[in-house]
């Protein structure tokens, strides 16, 4: 059987695709070393158009417009070019208000696709181009720690991070004058106060990675201009101990290990994408410590580490010890059972669907 997978790995080769959703010009080459701000690919994602009423501009009947056209469909025009005319004694003309390409002329109306600067896709991560994806972008590889979460507000940032918790259970609080905040990704425990989001915003923080978020802050977090990733869920839950220990230990390393790519993309179950933090590690690539990151296929077998879901166990962790099959639970609900040995050593019978793997 298979369950959702949430990844946590302190050191691995991580590969991430950076792709545009439309045919794009790819600007990098395989093997190239890149920085987060480097542009990977360019494309005009949503071109804008302008409809010009030639018949009205020329003061001519619709079916007369065609004889005054200066360009046909497909022509590239500059700002000020005469598109149609001159007509009559006063030599009336219709000029292109902007540079662009004519895409339709019909019923006395001309549709101009406005020339625009292409949209740029930046790497968002430091690393090496592992693979090019034709007309879309590239795959970046780096050696990093990977910490996945459960919810994100669909923004991203790359910046140094600061850990604002002395213990995993500390709730996140911020002081407006704290000089560590500007430009940093703030990492903390449960974010339960609206002021935290407000101060993070006004102080110019680059992002927020929190163990949990108060349910009443959902809309504000959704609308925040910086990325927010939640590790555990909504409510008051501590930072998982292994994640806290990893982040604290990285901060005791040289400064190169103090950066984080925070990608708050929403969890998409049809792919293997979840909101996540990738922390580049300054480790010798030939070091034997580095794992080729290959998540478990999600097949259930005793011994696996699992995270517990749903009230009242959300966020607890344990190891799967048995699969007793169809079972009844204290609430009277029936389901497929799983016995989990919690970190403190007690066994708990839970529905299998209330678990996810930690891989």
């Amino acid at each position: 059987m298979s369950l959702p997978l949430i990844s946590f790995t302190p050191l691995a080769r991580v590969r991430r695709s950076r792709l545009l959703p439309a045919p794009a010009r790819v600007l990098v080459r395989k093997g190239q070393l890149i920085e987060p701000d480097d542009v990977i690919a360019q494309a005009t994602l949503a071109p804008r158009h302008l409809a010009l009423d030639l018949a009205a501009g020329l003061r001519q009947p619709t079916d007369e417009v065609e004889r005054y056209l200066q360009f046909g469909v497909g022509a590239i025009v500059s700002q000020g070019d005469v598109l149609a005319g001159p007509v009559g004694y006063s030599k009336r003309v219709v000029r292109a208000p902007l540079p662009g390409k004519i895409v339709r002329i019909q019923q006395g109306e001309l549709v101009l696709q406005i020339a625009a600067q292409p949209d740029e896709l930046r790497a968002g991560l430091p690393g090496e181009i592992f693979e090019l994806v034709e007309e879309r972008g590239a795959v970046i590889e780096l050696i990093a720690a990977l910490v996945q979460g459960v919810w994100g507000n669909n923004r991203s940032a790359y910046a140094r991070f600061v850990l604002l918790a002395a213990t995993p259970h500390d709730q996140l609080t911020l002081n407006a004058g704290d000089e560590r905040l500007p430009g940093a990704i703030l990492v903390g425990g449960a974010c339960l106060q609206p002021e935290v989001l407000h101060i993070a915003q006004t102080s110019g923080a680059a992002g927020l990675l929190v163990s949990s978020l108060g349910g009443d802050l959902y809309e504000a977090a959704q609308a925040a201009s910086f990325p927010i990733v939640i590790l555990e869920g909504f409510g008051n839950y501590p930072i998982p101990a292994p994640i806290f220990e990893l982040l604290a230990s990285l901060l005791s390393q040289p400064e190169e290990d103090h950066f984080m790519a925070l990608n708050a993309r929403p969890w998409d179950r049809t792919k293997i994408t979840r909101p996540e933090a990738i922390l580049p590690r300054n480790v010798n690539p030939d070091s034997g410590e580095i794992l080729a990151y290959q998540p478990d296929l999600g097949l259930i077998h005793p011994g696996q580490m699992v995270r517990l879901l749903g009230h009242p166990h959300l966020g607890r962790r344990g190891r799967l010890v048995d699969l007793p099959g169809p079972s009844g639970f204290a609430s009277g609900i029936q389901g497929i059972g799983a016995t989990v040995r919690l970190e403190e050593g007690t066994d708990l019978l839970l529905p299998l669907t209330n678990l996810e793997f930690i891989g």
Partner: protein
Amino acid sequence: MSDSMDSLFLPPESLLTLDIGSSMTRAALFDVVEGSYNFLGSGNAPSTIYPPAGEMRRGIRWALDELSAALDRPLVDSGGRLLRPQLPGESGASHLSATYSIAPPLKILAFGLSPDYSLTSLIRLARCIPCQSLDAMDMQDGRRTDEHLDEILRLRPDLILVAGGSDGGGSQAVIELIDTLALACSLLPAGDSPLVLYCGNQAYASLADSRLSRLAHLVITPNLRPRPDQENLEPAMHKLVESYHQLCKQRLPWLSRLENLVQGNLGYSGYAFGRLVRYLNRLHPGEKGVMGVDLSASAATIAATFSGELALQVLPEYGLGSGLVNHLGSTALKSIASWSRLELPEAFIREYLLNKSLYPESLPLTPETVELEQSLARYLLRQALRQARPAFSTRAVSLTPEGLPMVEPVLASGALLANAPDPIQSLLVLLDGLQPAGISTLVLDEHLVAPGLGQALTKFPTQVVQLLGSNAFLHLATVIAPVGQARPGTPVLRINISYDNGDENGLEIKQGELRLIPISPGQPARLQLTPLQQFDIGMGSPGRGGSLRLTGSALGVVVDARGRPLQLPANPAERRQRLASWSAGLQASN
């Protein structure tokens, strides 16, 4: 299991249905027992279609293994191939059908001529299939051609539904609509060609074909508004579902393998559910319609058929999964809390909904969360019904202006209802959520086989007809809900019950009362119903009664005289006490 499991259509009559859901894969087996078709058992396993497993076969295999273990009947051989019986009663399964409710995230654009006619119908049509987003625009919305164009290019819809004009009429606007769409399609990047369903004025179908067929995957359907005052969604719905199935197969390659496995007998579960509801209406023709409700993680599905006309509305925003984030406002939270017997703080409900939206398959483990989920189900059913109601046939007859039309039966599906700790809880959720009026029967799809049987109807109708009256479904209760105006405590209905053994029993039902009359499953009874105070029980007119013959069911007969619409006390403590007393009253009578 291997893909070589094919050619399974052999003389013995066992039927295996598979349902691949976003969280669970279910297998159910039906076979002949003592001369008639029966449900034998089901097996469930978490679906394995999403990463990290990323394919369907493991989930199916485990569901089959569970089913096999429960029945002590081998279904697959040691090589993973499905066993094919040669004689009745042998191992394996001879017929297969499969449904899927997992849907690729689809962006749909409804593009109509006018907001009140074509666009309204297009939006109803779009609701027949699940979608990630549904945008709408029309030629009268005040936007210029270039603004329509930019909007289409920005949205990049996977599917565009387009309609306008009634048949026989001529309209320059329809030509402009087609031309704008053709221009937009020509400007979309190669490889992003959308699927376009043209369901408008048939006089322009050939124009649509000539302008659009090279730029998009075009499907032309009959006009969904052949006349301005007539809406006919069914032909377009059928084409839409067919096209949706093709689109799903492109996005989810494992679906084609599953289709081969079941020899083409594969369909989208929402439509299969609707098909079963329509078939039930054929079996129960008359003034009343048939209603189906399926409350699942991906959507609330409402299927209602009146005089053979199916209205199918798949509403992801009222599902128990990601749609829950649409119900975080204070009004919605208060409304959910108002159905609970326990005091549930709004903040608790809000956080629960948010976490449930992330992990919809997780089960409630405490009395508070069971209560919360059942309160949520009542709220979602009411909201979904309100949303779907305008799509019902104009032939639907209601005893109250906004209420549920008269239906017989109501088929209720979904894990939350099927897995309730006891049937009385399912009954109360349905009574409060749907608030049926008049006389109806509540049928629970306790094994979640309704979509599978709806799909099986296409090839195995005889078997399915037998199963409809079998143990495949749980006949929860016959509901009698008198409608009228009276003070609480006023007698509104007199019931005389006669049993076949000669026993008789007389009851008087008072306004505000909820009463259970247990009649054992299979026990015949005759009810003489006499409405008082000009109350209406749907027997022709207010105050008119009559005789009702029925056979007992899991819970018997429930008389719901609490009023329509059901008004709960405004005071929270009094309201919780009232809800608790209704529940306790039913439990005590059972």
